């Protein structure tokens, strides 16, 4: 009797098997991102009504909040995978963490930029040093520090592990960003969307925001998959399968 081999997801933890999987998944996530963002943009401009208090300026929320959510979420995912790479010594986990950082940094920048452009008409100022804005700025510096540290260290495994330690030390910043509006009375508005109670904003606004958030999430996955494929090729260039792969591309 032949033994049936059980399929295990762990087979994809090698760069060689993950590379084609990422290549197959990436266009789907890119397409999902495009569709979701298109729907979200349509809702944000043509379905959501004018706000009673803020007029049209509130429409920045459809980018600002999803970008801020992504900036925090991607850092947590990055911290998770680099932690896995540190503890279990898996190369691919660290490669994914490295691939996540630039996208996370860009979303942090977008959150800060759109926040400033929203703050000017509503609060009267481009920037204020309250807890949430300051800790989001620190998040940007943490992303940049992570990328700079990995770039500065020549030995790849050391760079991965050092980056992991830095990312994990910085994880403490995420709850600070999230809970800052509860812990301190700040200028930034409190949470309108929570798991426990009904949201305090109009249904169409909430829908648009959630769809844009999903769109950004799909985009992040697509961008990260594309980037991790580049990282895999660069780091595994000494292997035969990469040589074959490059030969196919030529």
């Amino acid at each position, binding site marked *: 009797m032949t033994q049936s081999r059980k399929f295990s997801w762990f087979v994809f933890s090698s760069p060689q098997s993950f590379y084609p999987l990422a290549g197959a998944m990436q266009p789907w996530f890119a397409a999902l991102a495009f569709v979701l963002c298109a729907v979200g943009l349509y809702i944000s401009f043509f379905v959501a009504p004018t706000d009673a208090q803020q007029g049209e300026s509130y429409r920045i929320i459809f980018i600002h909040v999803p970008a801020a959510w992504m900036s925090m979420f991607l850092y947590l995912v990055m911290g998770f995978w680099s932690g896995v790479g540190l503890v279990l010594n898996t190369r691919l986990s660290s490669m994914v963490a490295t691939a996540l950082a630039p996208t996370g940094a860009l979303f942090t920048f977008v959150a800060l930029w759109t926040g400033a452009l929203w703050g000017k008409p509503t609060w009267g100022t481009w920037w204020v040093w309250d807890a949430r804005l300051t800790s989001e700025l620190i998040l940007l510096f943490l992303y940049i520090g992570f990328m700079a*540290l990995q770039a500065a260290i020549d030995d790849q495994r*050391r760079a991965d592990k050092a980056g992991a330690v830095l990312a994990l*030390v910085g994880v403490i910043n995420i709850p600070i960003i999230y809970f800052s509006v509860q812990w301190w009375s700040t200028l930034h508005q409190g949470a309108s969307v929570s798991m426990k109670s009904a949201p305090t904003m109009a249904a169409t606004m909430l829908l648009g925001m959630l769809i844009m958030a999903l769109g950004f999430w799909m985009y992040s996955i697509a961008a990260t998959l594309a980037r991790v494929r580049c990282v895999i090729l660069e780091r595994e260039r000494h292997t035969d399968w990469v040589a074959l792969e490059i030969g196919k591309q030529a």
Partner: protein
Amino acid sequence: MIRTLGWVLRRDLLLVFRRRGDVINALVFFVIVVSLFPLGVGPEASQLRNMAPGVLWVSALLACMLSLARLFAPDHQDGTLEQMLLAGEPLVVIVLGKIMAHWLVSGLPLVLIAPLLGLQFDLPADALAVLCFSLLIGTPVLSLIGAVGAALTLGVRGSGALVALLVLPLYVPVLIFGAGSVGATASGTGAEAHLLLLGGFLALALVLAPWASAAALRIAME
């Protein structure tokens, strides 16, 4: 373990006192930088009084950060660090001893000289007291967090600027509450909350930083 701690502390302090220039460096840097600000912004007393907590805290922060290069790099260069890793003693204790020595040399003198510099800025007596106390609690946190950055960048090219990039974002909460405590005293709202939070940071850093630094040292020396 206490014996190891005492031994490491004694060794590091002995090494520093053989090159007394290092001790003086951080202190002189602190004094000079603090004195630059009144020269730059003008001698008006009320403006200086407002600026004083921030200026003193940022200067202390920068002085502490500059002296991080002394923490692990010299031992790494002459091979002692490798022996420390191979020793049977727990690395966390050794790291904690080194951090304590670092603070005694680069942090404590700043705390002691801060009142004099605060007088330059026309700070009232109660603000001076809170300033000293906030620095007393805060500078160990700076040494602890800085140790993690120094361990991560051990032997890396251009590590001076890189350590700054890694460590300064993590210093920001300490700076905010340290300088904020003095500001709160000056404005009358009381510094208890700030000082308690600083104490919380110290407790957290004492538990986490030596462990993270030890992990980073092992990674750097693999």
